[in-house]
């Protein structure tokens, strides 16, 4: 940054801050739309929504069918509906489902908390401080995403072995965090950039340390950004198969849901009804997390993706 820029920016940052969500389009526009255009718009959106949810809906439908009915050449929507698939999966007929579920929840939860927290501190430093290495750090985050991570399984395995983390939950969580960190940091940095620095400075004058500012002012204000990041981190860990099968201990009790189910798929190729029920059960927590954060998704991602 040149000196003149610095001076110009001292002045320009005095402009009133842009807070809150982006302005919504006024209602005037809708009133002027012809009825035909409205019908067309709704038709297109209904169609798109249908395509978006149909595959999942079909799994839901199938999950209530007995296995053999799931294999009919002319599938019916409802065919001897039963909840047996669910009860059998939950009862552990195909492995300790609930244990796996708990493992997955623990791993995804830890990934979310740790990943979001350390991404947030990093993003805050990048957003607020001009320290040497700042730009190169962000660029290396971009480069990190270019490498096919699965190929690193062997070196990673050796590494985790060296640290005694092979087979442990923490090892896997750290690997997941690493894959989530670049994008999370980028997103949160974008969000923090939209919070006026005056807020930080007011906090400092009021008696906060830089850490205090981050913890008591910035984090609460960045909720939408945090929500998207948490969603992203959760999804990174939830349902991942490759690393989970390589880095968790071999015994059945230690598996995650996705890994457990993966083995169940290979054993039981034809149990589509049960598989469908298990899939729905796996999808459920992710959908719940999604529902919790969905209001923040647009504004959270907007600030991250849109510069200025």
């Amino acid at each position, binding site marked *: *940054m*040149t*000196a*003149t*820029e*610095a*001076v*110009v920016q*001292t*002045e320009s940052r*005095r402009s*009133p*801050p842009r*807070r*809150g969500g982006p302005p919504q389009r006024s209602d005037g526009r809708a009133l002027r739309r012809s009825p035909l255009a409205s019908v067309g718009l709704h038709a297109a959106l209904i169609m798109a929504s249908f395509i978006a949810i149909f595959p999942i809906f079909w799994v839901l439908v199938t999950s209530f069918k007995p296995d053999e009915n799931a294999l009919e050449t002319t599938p019916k929507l409802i065919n001897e509906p039963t909840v047996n698939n669910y009860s059998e999966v939950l009862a552990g007929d195909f492995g300790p489902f609930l244990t796996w579920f708990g493992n997955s929840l623990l791993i995804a939860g830890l990934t979310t908390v740790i990943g979001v927290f350390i991404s947030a501190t990093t993003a805050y430093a990048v957003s607020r401080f001009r320290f040497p290495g700042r730009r190169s750090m962000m660029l290396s985050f971009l480069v990190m995403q270019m490498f096919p991570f699965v190929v690193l399984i062997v070196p990673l395995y050796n590494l985790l072995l060296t640290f005694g983390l092979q087979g442990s939950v923490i090892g896997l969580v750290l690997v997941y965090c690493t894959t989530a960190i670049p994008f999370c940091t980028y997103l949160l940095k974008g969000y923090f950039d939209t919070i*006026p620095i*005056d*807020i930080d*400075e*007011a*906090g*400092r*004058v*009021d*008696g*906060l*340390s830089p850490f*205090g500012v981050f913890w008591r*002012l910035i984090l*609460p*204000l960045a909720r939408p950004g945090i929500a998207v990041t948490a969603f992203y981190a959760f999804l990174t860990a939830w349902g991942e198969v490759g690393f989970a099968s390589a880095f968790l201990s071999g015994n059945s009790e230690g598996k995650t849901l996705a890994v457990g189910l993966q083995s169940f798929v290979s054993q039981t190729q034809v149990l589509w009804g049960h598989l469908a029920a298990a899939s729905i059960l796996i999808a459920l927590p992710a959908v719940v997390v999604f529902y919790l954060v969905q209001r923040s998704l647009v504004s959270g991602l907007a600030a991250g993706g849109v510069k200025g």
Partner: protein
Amino acid sequence: MAQVAYRKASRIFPGSPPVRAVDQLDLDIADGEFLVLVGPSGSGKSTALRMLAGLEDVDEGNIEIAGQDVTNVPPKGRDIAMVFQSYALYPHMTVAQNMGFALKLRGVSKDQIQSKVQEAAKLLDLSELLDRRPKALSGGQRQRVAMGRAIVREPSVFLMDEPLSNLDAKLRVETRANIASLQRRLRTTTVYVTHDQVEAMTMGDRVAVLESGLLKQVGTPAELYERPRNAFVAGFIGSPAMNLKTVPLTADGAKLDGLTVPLPREVLDVAAEQGLSSVIVGIRPESLRVASEGENGMELVVELVEELGADAFVYGTVRIAGDSQRFTVRVEGRSSPKLAETVKVTVRDSDDLHAFSPETGERLG
């Protein structure tokens, strides 16, 4: 309460070449004083304030508050409160929480915070709004909350960074008076930054004028108005601005078109001493008048007349040494000249003239 001192304090923004945003500022602010830092944008006034707040590095020199060197003290250790231009209210806290936040951080008891917040709220007419969030407030209300947040702290120094610039014109005038009277009542040392010289003149006990990081003059509003120490201050203070013209110097005074204005002896002496053949002469619009019949004067071609009721400002051009020069003249409201008319203008009282060196811009005599 405390006095404040800048001791050759500089802030240098790195770059090539580095920019001295504030250059060796030397300034003493007395206990309880209301000092206004004024200057055009880029003059370093905000930077100077932020250095005092601890939000900006002090690259050279020192800053003292209450006799203590605070150059290396972080903001929270300086016992200051600041009102920001954007107000910087915490959006996720209510008005009461905003005002009480600093006290809470210092571990003041809840009851005490509550009573102090209520007291300040009463003072600022915010009692009804304590449970609202900043988003639900009008601009004027937000401004008052920002003031309240500063007052509740009972700091030794108030810092205000253009706190009125986001208000509409009417509210600004009103709030200006409120802040000034509040400060007189609390007697808390206050440093106030503005680019608006009217604010500076009406509010400050003393005014410090900055330009390009340099302190141009500090003094009471009357001093700045009556005896500007240099051409910059002369042109900056007063509205409409003083007429500042570089004109040839004769044995008796300055030569303006058909008019030679006499300059005081000491001015002429100093000018002669410095070997000047021309001089910047400064004449406030109110020091000019329309010449009466047969009097000598400058021929002013009227381009714009601003009627203000009681009086009017006439803007026009005068040809001096072949160049057309702009002048502003204050006239009686009822007898203002018409557009495109040519009027003869002369100086009301030659004691009201200011003269500056064209080389240094410094006042002569």
